């Protein structure tokens, strides 16, 4: 079978970078499996409880980059109790003990303690890159350890983490000898930073390409930083508030004009909207613009800004842009691929929101649109059908109507037909989130048409078990299914338990599944962990199998029950 020496095959495998492809390669034969595993440097683990660190280390001794995801997605929305799990410490401890030369660690929705960060910083000489997304459990002390000990640190990227901010000295912990920084993102920190230390750090980092500041960095510091780092490609502005007639502002204008490489702009955590003209010179080159944390920017000022951004490919904004503003986007941003519209006032009276009109305009004006996250006041079937016709290339389509079971306000029909049109037209659809009034019908459409669907999020939908069955039977590539508040019960859950082994995970909360049903799944499928999350501890007092389960999370695993589950989680 092998006509080539191992080294040749290894070299060939070097060109295969996608995880999926490398996984496939490793299944061809024993020989390929062996070569692949020794040469594998990057590993992605979508559920940290599906495998143990020991087995990871045993299989991939050449590991350099590890990506781990912890909590289920619905944890983002407070549906998973705080200490459910997802601790990274055991992983770092195991890796530290081994001879793995870890260089990169990317974590999402995990609990990261200062202790973990410190251990990480001291255990891997060549550690280069730490990316934390939606994590929690650490403070700026942990960051100080990373700064102080990782001598060759290139990337420190903190995205939307809950960090206990002990105020700014962590930046001063970067030694003078640290000149390797390429990316520094601390926008999510809420506290003060040592501005002098920041300026010096940026001055001695000639390779710095990405810099995202937090709210505590004022405009005059921004100006100084830009003067020292005109090579920036990605900029996140902290505070953008100043007097338009001041010296500082003039200096800023000059500094910005020197930054000809900026392609990505975000932040504006505090903003004086009448001073946006300084930004115009770089708008023409922007491919990514994230204003979703800048509620101060809206109306005409926002539109004027967008009108300068002709090359935009990704746009994240708040719904105060309005349908009109989306019309401006449609006219201006012909290269747009990804649009995310977040609610600026999610629990309010909804007068600021966008409607189906805005989406239709964008779909008409931006034919390359393939990724959408859209929080809106309302949606109609007609609009969705039009969008489906205009943009058949959707890969991600996530629609969130603020009122979760709102029907089509024009016809009072459920939105089955609209979403049906989306799945039928967008043959490459991989991720879908539904909302609005929906019956079993929409799931029939999804089962029939959404052949490439990998992730589906359902809330407050369907009439019966049929809905869930259509999906489980039809979507062959489904990996993640998360359901809340739907009338799916044991019949649907138990119809094809083997299916869950082909998926990463299934989440069902506030549905109709019973304890008995969940037990049945666990019994039939020992390769699954079936977790019952019971915060109110109802289960303790009433172990009746007919009891409805509030939250169930099941996932495939090679290592059986996890040992770190809190009291209120029972693994069946």
């Amino acid at each position, binding site marked *: 079978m092998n006509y080539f020496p191992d080294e040749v095959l290894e070299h060939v495998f070097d060109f295969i970078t996608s995880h999926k492809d490398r996984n496939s390669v490793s299944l061809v034969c024993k020989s390929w499996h062996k070569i692949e595993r020794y040469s594998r440097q990057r590993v992605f683990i979508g559920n940290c409880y599906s495998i143990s660190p020991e087995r990871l280390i045993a299989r991939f001794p050449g590991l350099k980059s590890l990506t781990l995801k912890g909590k289920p997605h619905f944890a983002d929305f407070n549906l998973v109790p705080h200490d459910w799990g997802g601790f990274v410490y055991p992983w770092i401890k195991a890796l530290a003990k081994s001879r793995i030369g870890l260089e990169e660690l990317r974590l999402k929705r995990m609990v990261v303690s200062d202790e973990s960060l410190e251990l990480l910083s001291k255990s891997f000489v060549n550690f280069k890159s730490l990316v934390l997304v939606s994590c929690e459990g650490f403070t700026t002390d942990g960051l100080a350890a990373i700064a102080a000990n990782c001598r060759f640190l290139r990337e420190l990227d903190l995205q939307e983490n809950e960090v206990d901010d002990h105020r700014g000295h962590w930046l001063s912990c970067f030694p003078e000898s640290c000149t390797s920084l390429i990316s520094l993102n601390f926008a999510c920190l809420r506290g003060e930073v040592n501005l002098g230390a920041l300026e010096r750090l940026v001055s001695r980092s000639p390779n710095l390409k990405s810099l995202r500041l937090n709210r505590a960095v004022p405009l005059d510091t921004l100006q100084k930083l830009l003067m020292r780092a005109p090579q920036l490609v990605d900029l996140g502005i902290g505070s953008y508030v100043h007097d338009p007639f001041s010296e500082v502002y003039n200096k800023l204008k000059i500094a910005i004009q020197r930054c000809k490489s900026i392609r990505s702009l975000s932040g504006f955590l505090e903003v004086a909207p009448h001073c946006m003209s300084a930004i115009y010179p770089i708008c023409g080159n922007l491919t990514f613009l994230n204003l979703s944390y800048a509620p101060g920017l809206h109306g005409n000022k926002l539109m004027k800004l967008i009108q300068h951004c002709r090359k935009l490919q990704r746009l994240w904004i708040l719904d105060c842009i309005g349908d009109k503003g989306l019309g401006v986007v449609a006219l201006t941003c012909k290269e747009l691929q990804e649009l995310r519209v977040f609610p600026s006032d999610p629990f309010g009276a909804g007068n600021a929101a966008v409607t189906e009109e805005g989406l239709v305009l964008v779909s008409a004006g931006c034919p390359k649109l393939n990724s959408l996250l859209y929080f809106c006041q309302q949606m109609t079937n007609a609009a969705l059908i039009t969008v489906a016709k205009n943009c058949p290339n959707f890969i991600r389509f996530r629609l969130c109507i603020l*009122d979760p079971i709102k029907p089509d*306000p024009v016809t009072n029909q459920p939105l089955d037909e609209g979403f049906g049109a989306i799945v039928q037209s967008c043959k490459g659809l991989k991720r879908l989130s539904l909302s609005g009034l929906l019956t079993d019908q929409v799931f029939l459409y999804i089962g029939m048409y959404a052949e490439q669907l990998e992730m589906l999020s359902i809330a407050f939908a369907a009439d019966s078990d049929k809905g869930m069955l259509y999906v489980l039977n039809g979507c062959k590539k489904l990996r993640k299914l998360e359901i809340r508040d739907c*009338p799916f019960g044991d*019949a649907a859950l138990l119809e094809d338990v083997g299916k869950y082994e082909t998926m990463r995970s299934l989440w069902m909360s506030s549905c109709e599944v019973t304890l008995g049903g969940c037990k049945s799944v666990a019994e039939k499928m020992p390769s699954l962990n079936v977790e019952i999350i019971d915060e109110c501890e109802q289960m303790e007092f009433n172990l009746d199998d007919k009891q409805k389960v509030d939250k169930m999370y099941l996932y495939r695993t090679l290592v059986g029950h996890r040992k770190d589950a809190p009291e209120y989680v029972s693994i069946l």
Partner: protein
Amino acid sequence: MSPLLLGAEEEGQSRVSSPSVECISQNGLGIREWNYLGLSDFCSVDSSGVPDDNGNNLNLKATELRLGLPGSQSPERETEHCFLNSGKLDEKTLFPLLPSKDGICSSSQKSVVTGNKRGFSEVKGTIYTEKKWMGPGAVPDSQSLQPVSHGKYSVAQASVKKDGPANVIQEQPCTSNGTKVNRTDISNNSSAPTANRAQVVGWPPIRSFRTKTLTTSSKNNDEVDGKPGPGTLFVKVSMDGAPYLRKVDLRMYSTYQELSSALEKMFSCFTLGQCGAHGTPGKEILSESKLKDLLHGSEYVLTYEDKDGDWMLVGDVPWEMFIETCRRLKIMKSADAIGLGK
């Protein structure tokens, strides 16, 4: 499955794509039937009373078949169904439900029916379970969705009248048969101000980090212009001698000068005097005399009532502090303003 899904709305013929066809044939009868089956099993502790007794409250007119094209409204169905706006929702139904607004109305009432602690969606789930059990009998083959979906619609719009103080009315005729009214009209007629949506846990699905950040930015007003967060700050402006008051949104301005110009324009119809903002651009703090200059010579001064109820002269404190403490504005004759605190 109809290949012409994209044109489904016009088609309306294929069974699968248009449940409304089936519903039409069943009309009010079907609704009442489901009503009974759906609800009697769920009347629980709250003893909302059997809905059948209140059958008269089923507005048959509302269930009348109306086939309109998408987009046509049925405006005359209004007041009878505005029970939702009576504001008499039981506490139980309010938490953790969404208040009466648009499509939520029916669901909030559903939860009343079941008394289920898990909120409206739970109720929805419960009702559907019932129907599911009926499913196998009523739905012999997997393709036939009609009875289920039909039933769902009708139960969803089932009428429930609760006796007692709660007085929650759940009334919506079957929407699937093409009737247009219900929720939209009700919401259009909603006189009850929807202050805040009651919050269902985890909805809308926004990362808590984002929610916290945006809330913080609305609190940190200090140097921020524009509208962070829910963001308008309307205050009343009265002027001595003017027949009526005005309102201004303080967040629209970032300096005293801007506010002053705006007020001038607003009240110019009541006074003589020139417009035209003098004053140094860029200065946030205007002295008393400057304000006098701007406001029609020395005739008027601008004053405000602060949080403590004291009347102060505008212009002494930094702008950001001013908008945080200002309750309302008054353009006074300077003669009357003597002795105002600073």
